[in-house]
């Protein structure tokens, strides 16, 4: 099973040169720590920053420079600042090539639920609905099962939806899967994880076509 950093590391392998990328809070933010050698990308933060850099050194925190998770960050050279309507124009206008976000549930046709557990957790959707409605390329980073051991890759989401038919790829602590018209297609297994374990943990339709290689990390 992969840990959070390894999930992020696998997703970072999807980055292509020249891309603009939005990283959601949680595991997705860790993707910025694993940019492959020779790949140049710019991270967009929905609160109005392009060219988001790593966390500052101690003593150099700037209260006026934060990311979407309200953490202090830095800005890379060549970065820029803009307001919230411009930020979502960038997102909604499909100028950002990749969105990575977490989820509570993903369905096998690409629906995603990641903002509300009725009666228990209603923090709000933030920019998630705009992101999933507009991005061409959406990768979900999440654990394969929840704390109760139940599958998070479902036939149909039971929680309130963030978006419909929008997720393209899912990377979990157990596997890499594509969303296809026939359901989740298993592309790779986490090192040491068996097909049986993945099948047992996946409630939605799962397509296994031939040999499924292990992830290379």
């Amino acid at each position, binding site marked *: 099973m992969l840990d959070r950093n390894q999930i992020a590391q696998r997703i970072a392998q999807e980055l292509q040169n020249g891309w603009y990328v939005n990283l959601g809070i949680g595991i997705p933010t860790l993707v910025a720590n694993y940019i492959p050698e020779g790949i140049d990308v710019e991270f967009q933060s929905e609160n109005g920053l392009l060219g988001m850099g*790593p966390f500052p050194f101690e003593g150099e925190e700037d*209260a*006026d420079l*934060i990311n979407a998770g309200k953490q*202090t960050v830095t800005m890379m050279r060549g970065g820029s600042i803009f307001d*919230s309507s411009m930020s979502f124009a960038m997102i909604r206008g499909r100028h950002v090539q990749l969105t990575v976000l977490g989820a509570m549930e993903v369905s096998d046709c690409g629906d995603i639920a990641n903002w509300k557990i009725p009666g228990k957790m209603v923090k*709000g959707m*933030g920019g998630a609905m705009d992101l999933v409605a*507009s991005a061409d390329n959406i990768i979900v980073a999440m654990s394969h099962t929840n704390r109760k051991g139940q599958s998070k890759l479902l036939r149909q989401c039971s929680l*309130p939806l963030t978006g419909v038919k929008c997720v393209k790829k899912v990377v979990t602590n157990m596997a890499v899967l594509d969303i296809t018209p026939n359901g989740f297609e298993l592309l790779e297994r986490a090192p040491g994880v068996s097909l049986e374990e993945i099948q047992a943990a996946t409630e939605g339709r799962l397509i296994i076509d031939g040999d499924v290689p292990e992830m290379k990390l």
Partner: protein
Amino acid sequence: MNKLVKDAKEGIEGIKDGMTLMLGGFGLCGIPENCISALVDIGVKDLTCISNNAGVDDFGIGLMLQRSQVKKMISSYVGENDEFERQMLSRDLEVDLIPQGSLAERCRAGGAGIPAFFTPAGYGTEVANGKEVRYFDGKPHILESALQADYALVKAWKGDRYGNIIFKGTARNFNPVMAMAGKITVVEVEELVEPGGLDPNFIHIPGVFVQRIFQGTGYEKRIEQRTTRSKA
């Protein structure tokens, strides 16, 4: 042109129970600290507050929530404030959670004379309930309407007495679009400059949108999550 007022107390003059306010800021970044303190001081209540977040328990809009001054919040994310979540789940507080991009665009539209627009955000979710759906290029979109406020409370970095203002870093966020959408826009600045002191090419919001401006004081600029990296 002289839109200068003395302080936050003068800035918020005229705000009454039941009004709709817009408050700039993202988290605690770029919030109108002085005006929020002044609202707490005068104890105005039954307010509808349009703001991306609700502050934290003891800072920002959280201060107003503690004193039950807010009847309704229109926000996109309220996760940092436990008191808020509690009031919402127990139905003491009415909450409209709306997608952040739609919130920004609804404020912009409100200031720009665009009564409504179509967006793909929220289609297929409960956000779309009761809203008209139309297809463009084969993709479904929902109709969202413009937002306006009786007062927009804005925090800026520098400004002059014409109301021209500029913002710093990510403290910009919702402030520009809310400045546009307030019937009365009140701006607190860290630094008041002389007219001509701001390069006209780099003004973020022209003074036409601003009715009152004052030199703010004592900014705490609290950091919600102080994250750092170690020197290798």
